[in-house]
């Protein structure tokens, strides 16, 4: 385990472990409570595997009533709870606590309602992202957000992280595609938000829940919007001698009013690794490779392919291929989709970062990243959601070499600071979790973070849900609630009022 510290476990809670297990068994009968070390082992980490921690006990409820009772028990007995979906978080969002109950939602795996006239599907949170599309694809529909882990990640986890994917410039993030939720508060109260209608009653707590990383409540049901599959999709594979040319081409495509379904960029090392792995036919003599996918009605797609091709030529593209079949399109994507495992082949370990930057800053950020690579003496491969500015630098390291994980983490922190410096953010779609927790002050002032934590207090004043994630310093709610009232002078008497 490296630099990031978790809150010290509470000895008294750990001493009560046997009693807690018993209480949970009374609520969730049979195999729903896992408490032996061997059986708990798979839960000790998520996809941020550098960090591991055995939970106090694992519980797998099957009904909303059980979720409610478990949470109420934990609330009444001051026991912490870490909710977990499929465990694919890249930011350590589901990292267990030694003194906390790990609540896995994977038994909530049913599709409850498919409603084509309203283009809505109601599912339980453990259904996978791809599972939603699978349930409706026969009728020509799909669920648009497509994080790269979509085969495994759960929709509940997608809510927690506001997951994106390659299509979100055109089709939005999770938050733009969720219509309603049922969730349970730490007190055990069940709350429903939104539904198949669109106007929301009161504050937009649905929007707040999306991206709240399991700190506010446990989602037990999700209603999402489904879309009709585009009639066709075609892709261009464009190589550029410099990343500046590639960056300018992306800006020009958008300036022409074209919003591609997907627009992905890769740098030299990523291209090389992907090509060696899947032989997608990527050009190897370019500094940047751009995949532009256009989807929609055939007439539109064919027209736009020509327009994008012309723009690419104006921006010194050194190679352009255009897909003429579904097979060819898939080949273009094969390398990009395999980029992470491809990098995994050329390095024993890698850290995947997730900053977002204004698109125009790409050349500057790539140049600075090369300098940082020299400074930290580690290689970095870049894949980039060029359409929305979301950058995934993969830092290559070897965990068995002393000090390399630390160097990789330092390199990662430098990259994220750079993202903030150019006007971007720490995380586009992976979440803060534990990984970026201590970097939050790079982006937010103390007042900013305090107001965020006050929102937490409205949901969970005892800080029992997923503590130690997202916020670098935990403030007690009583302390956060204090008002600092200044003198009562009428403000700026010299400005106009009437």
């Amino acid at each position, binding site marked *: 385990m490296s630099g990031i510290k978790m809150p010290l476990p509470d000895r008294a809670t750990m001493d009560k472990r046997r009693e807690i297990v018993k209480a949970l068994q009374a609520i969730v009968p049979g195999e729903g409570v896992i408490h032996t070390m061997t059986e708990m082992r798979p839960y000790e980490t998520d996809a941020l595997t550098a960090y591991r921690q055995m939970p106090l006990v694992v519980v797998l409820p099957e009904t909303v009533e059980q979720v409610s009772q478990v949470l109420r028990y934990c609330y009444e007995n001051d026991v912490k709870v870490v909710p977990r979906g499929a465990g694919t978080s890249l930011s350590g969002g589901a990292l267990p606590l030694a003194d906390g109950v790990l609540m896995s939602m994977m038994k909530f795996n049913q599709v409850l309602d498919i*409603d084509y*006239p*309203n283009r809505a599907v109601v599912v339980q949170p453990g259904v996978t992202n791809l599972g939603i599309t699978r349930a409706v694809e026969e009728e*020509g*529909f799909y669920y648009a957000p497509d994080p790269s882990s979509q085969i495994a990640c759960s929709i509940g986890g997608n809510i927690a*992280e506001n997951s*994106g994917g390659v299509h*979100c410039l055109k089709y939005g993030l999770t*938050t*733009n595609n969720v219509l309603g939720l049922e969730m349970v508060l730490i007190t055990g*109260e069940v*709350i429903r*938000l939104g*539904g*198949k*209608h*669109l*106007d*929301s*009653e*009161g*504050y*937009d*707590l649905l*929007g707040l829940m*999306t991206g709240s*990383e399991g700190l506010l409540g446990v989602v037990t049901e999700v209603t999402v919007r489904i879309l009709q599959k585009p009639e066709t999709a075609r892709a261009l594979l464009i190589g550029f001698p410099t990343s500046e040319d590639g960056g300018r081409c992306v*800006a020009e495509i958008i300036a022409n*009013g074209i*919003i591609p379904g997907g627009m992905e960029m890769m740098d030299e090392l990523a291209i090389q690794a992907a090509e060696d792995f899947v032989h997608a036919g990527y050009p190897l003599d370019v500094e940047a490779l751009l995949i532009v996918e256009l989807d929609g*009605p055939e*007439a539109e797609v064919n*027209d736009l392919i020509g327009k994008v091709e012309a723009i690419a030529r104006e921006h010194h593209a050194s190679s352009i291929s255009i897909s003429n079949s579904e097979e060819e399109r898939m080949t273009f994507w094969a390398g990009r989709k395999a980029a992470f495992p491809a990098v995994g082949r050329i390095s024993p370990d890698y850290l995947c970062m997730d900053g*977002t*930057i*204004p*698109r*125009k800053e790409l050349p500057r950020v790539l140049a600075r990243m090369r300098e940082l690579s020299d400074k930290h003496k580690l290689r970095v491969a870049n894949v980039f*959601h060029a359409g929305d500015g*979301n950058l995934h630098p993969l830092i290559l390291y070897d965990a068995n070499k002393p000090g390399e994980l630390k160097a990789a983490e330092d390199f990662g922190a430098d990259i994220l600071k750079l993202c903030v410096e150019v*006007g971007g*953010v*720490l*995380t586009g*779609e992976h*979440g803060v979790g534990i990984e970026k927790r201590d970097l939050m002050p790079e982006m*937010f002032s103390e007042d900013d973070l*305090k*107001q*965020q934590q006050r*929102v937490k207090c409205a*949901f969970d004043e005892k800080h029992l849900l997923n503590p130690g994630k997202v916020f670098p310093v935990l403030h007690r709610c009583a302390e956060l*609630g204090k008002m600092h009232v*200044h003198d*009562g002078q*009428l*403000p700026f008497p010299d*400005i106009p*009022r*009437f």
Partner: protein
Amino acid sequence: MDTTFTPTNTEETREVVAWAVANANPLEVIGQGSKRELGRPVQAAHCLSLSKLSGVVAYEPEELVLTAYAGTPIAEIEALVAQNGQELSFEPMDYGPLLRREPGQGTLGGVLATNLSGPRRLKAGAARDHILGMEAVSGRGEIFKSGGKVVKNVTGYDLPRVLCNSWGTLAVATTVTLKVNPRSETSASYVLYGLSDEMAVEAMCTAMGSAAEVSGAAHLPAGVGDKEAKTILRLEGFGKSVDYRYKSLAKVLERFGQGARLKVDASTKTWREIRDCTPLAGGHDTIWRVSVAPADGAKFVAALKPHFDFQCLYDWSGGLVWIKPVDGEQHERDLREVLSACGGGHAMLVRALSPVRAALDVFQPQPLPLQELSRRVKQQFDPQGILNPGRMVAGR
């Protein structure tokens, strides 16, 4: 002492709120005051107007992002982005015609605080789907920022979205960053005549479920705007694409009859009227805005008919129904009971005199646990109830 404060920057805004907190003087927060007749009336002696906190701070068309002060007129922003072939794709409606005011008023802050949208909500979402970040002054008199200036961001809680539809009761936004989008090259509408409400909703849901990428689906029953009922479906995009999809849509809707094409100008005019509910705007009497599951729109209207006479207009494929009772009364209980029996949704009393809006639930009442949670959220932003007291719920 009724005072209107007009701060010109964030720090001055903070000073006003801090003063109000220190003296326990609630504030009515407004932009231009164009939506004062909407929602519940505020009980506050003093007013914080953002009308002088105005101007676009940064606009980069190729980044699809715009940052402006909250008091910037929305018309100014729409004109600026239009010069660059862009638009706010959530198509914020103009409440002017319904509220018997001049059209084209209102500020960016007001659009967000009331989470405005338009017919394109079905495809592009509402204001809440386009806000990226903001700086604001909380009811504690503290400046905080949240979100960012990029589309993809999950760094911390999404407070900007919470401020959308909060009617100025949580914090006073001072600077806002929005996503903008390219404006469609052209548009056209496909009109079906003489459909019953039930058939119209079925046609609209069929169209929305097709690959024709319909960006507006509205139904004007007979006698609303025209003698004959009209069901209107909008297509937007590149010229060739619109023509192509027009043909495929006509085919998908064959069984609903032969439709006619509205060309770009007529289409644009029609959709502006639908967006602003102009066909029902005449007079001063009660108007309700009811949001239901789209496929239930006609069912809701049919179930309501035995209770009282009204005119109505459907947008959002049946998911938004504007209701205008013929006798000018509110009929709140009937309306909410029928809504609940038809699967639930959200009903808002849009037009009524101030004492009426103060006396009944303007917004959809919430179940108790949600009501309590909302109260606690308010408490965390504005513990003393300084900002817009009574605007959403009586007593807070």
